[in-house]
């Protein structure tokens, strides 16, 4: 009997000790796990924040790409349309100029063009070139310019004159075409502003 109770006591003691140890281990493991979880939480939050901010950055980048390219597409289409309009205005204006009546004030225009051209070359001893339509007008004015001679050769232009010095080294183009070409950027701007663009 005595030996049995001692045995039981020993077993109880061992069981209690083991139980205590197991409980302590469990408690430690619990707190370790809690600690690990607590530690990883800020890391997790950091990771989460990073993923979110990267996502925002990427979304922002894509938004900029889409908006940027569509804005440009729209603007470019507008530019092409405007240019089409400008071209139409130009061709209509050129048609009107080409078919202008050569009588009346037109001879004044030719005179102004000749005055300008001879002044720029610094001499009236020049050969004058013009188109078939303006030939008669030019011929009638030319007597006022000593030494000026009308070339038998005609040039292809809307109107106006082109002069060349006698030695052939200097030329000044004062045809309507050349003047339009010179002022084209300004004329384009004017036309564009009537379409409500360009200013």
């Amino acid at each position: 009997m005595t030996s049995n109770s001692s045995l039981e006591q020993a077993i109880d003691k061992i069981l209690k000790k083991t139980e205590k140890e197991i409980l302590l281990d469990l408690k430690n493991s619990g707190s370790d796990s809690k600690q690990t979880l607590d530690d990883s939480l800020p890391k997790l939050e950091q990771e989460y924040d990073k993923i979110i901010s990267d996502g925002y950055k990427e979304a922002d980048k894509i938004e900029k790409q889409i908006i940027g390219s569509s804005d440009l597409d729209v603007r470019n289409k507008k530019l092409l349309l405007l240019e089409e309009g400008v071209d139409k205005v130009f061709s209509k204006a050129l048609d009107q100029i080409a078919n202008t009546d050569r009588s009346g004030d037109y001879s004044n225009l030719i005179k102004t063009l000749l005055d300008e051209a001879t002044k720029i070359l610094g001499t009236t001893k020049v050969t004058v070139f013009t188109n078939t339509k303006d030939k008669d007008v030019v011929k009638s004015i030319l007597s006022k310019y000593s030494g000026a001679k009308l070339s038998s050769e005609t040039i292809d232009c809307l109107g106006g004159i082109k002069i060349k010095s006698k030695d052939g080294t200097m030329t000044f183009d004062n045809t309507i075409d050349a003047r339009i070409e010179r002022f084209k950027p300004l004329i384009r701007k004017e036309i564009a502003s009537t379409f409500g663009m360009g200013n």
Partner: protein
Amino acid sequence: MTLEGGVQYSKIAEIKGPLVVVDDVDNAAFDELVEIETNEGERRLGKVLEVGNGKAIVQVFEGTTGLSIAGTSAKFVGKVMEMPVSKEVLGRVFDGLGRPKDGLPDPIADKFVDINGEPMNPEQREYPKDFIQTGISVIDGLMTLVRGQKLPIFSGSGMSHNLLAAQIARQASVVGKQDDFAVVFAAIGVQYSEAEYFRRSLEESGALKRSVLFLNTADDPAIERIITPRVALTVAEYLAFDLGMHVLVVMTDMTNYCEALREISAAREEVPGRKGYPGYLYTDLSTIYERAGKLQGRKGSVTQVPILSMPSDDITHPIPDLTGYITEGQIVIGRDLFRQGVYPPINILMSLSRLMKDGIGEGSTRADHSEVANQVYDAYSRAQEVRALAGIVGKAGLTEIDLKYMDVGDVFEKEFLTQAIDENRTIEETLGILWKIVSKLPKNEITKIKDKYIDQYYKEE
């Protein structure tokens, strides 16, 4: 635009390299625009370099190949070269002479501006002090760019300066302000593939909308390169001082510009200076670089990042040498880092932004910026010394603190310097990495930062 000029001269005395000498010329003016017409009716542009004794020397931008004395004529236009400018130039691509290259018509001009610009009144200049974020850590953190500054990038052949240029153009912004920001990009004598890369890169990132591109490719006549930076800067000045935008001008490669200048100088038989470049190279470069700045009472600014490749990586070569005299610091691309595969391979120990101190700190970046940047400079410099020492005595011979500095050097190169080409870091992220590097050092090694910042940002490992 006036009717003055327009006289066409057909007496060509000589064609020499990129120059045409016209005889019996009256009334031509220095820098006057000239239209050269060939036998076949082809027109090329040029400008008057010299007039006198009835002769005019004309520099032909598109080269003189195919021109002959007989049959060629020169029309003196009566005005200097002008660039049509308006807000519509944004989002457009032009060639090196400012002509549209994107298949669209000429922009409707708000005004026509002389490409030589108007010199800024020194009295009216405002000191540059506002931060521009490039999104590239090494630039923003250690050699900060400020509005109105001219900060060149010195590179070498084959290195990644063009990638860096495109990244700056895509990412640059003014932080925290609603001010309009624009990028003017001038590619001077670059390869076709590079020009395409610049264009695609800006298009795909959506940055083209706020950019203007001037592309002069390597196969374009060299003489055009003289004009490209000038038309680009003319547009930049208009956007900045007429429209109030903050404009970043990236010009690559200025070495090609200088080569073109040398070509003309040689053709004019001028007395050559160092390495055959003209003696006026410094003056000429200053007419480009000095177009950066801010003006009192005007809202906008022009900031320049010229990029030049140093022949044989020689920083004493006349081009980087003279550039360095004019600009406010330099960013040097290092061959060693490039070979190690580091991007962007910027050698911080040879680089410097002289205006950085005025563009950083409280109110612009962060109060601790200057101190943490100084500490990292110092630590990286020490790391380089330790690396050299380790090369002799081996790692085993190094002290514990030496090893920490080596570690700092590695982290600096791997985490701070190295960046993806599409990675746009905010200034906070950049400063965060700088503190990560500083935190590798024991506190007693941190001598350049105030305690209050150490307490706030130092993270002991």
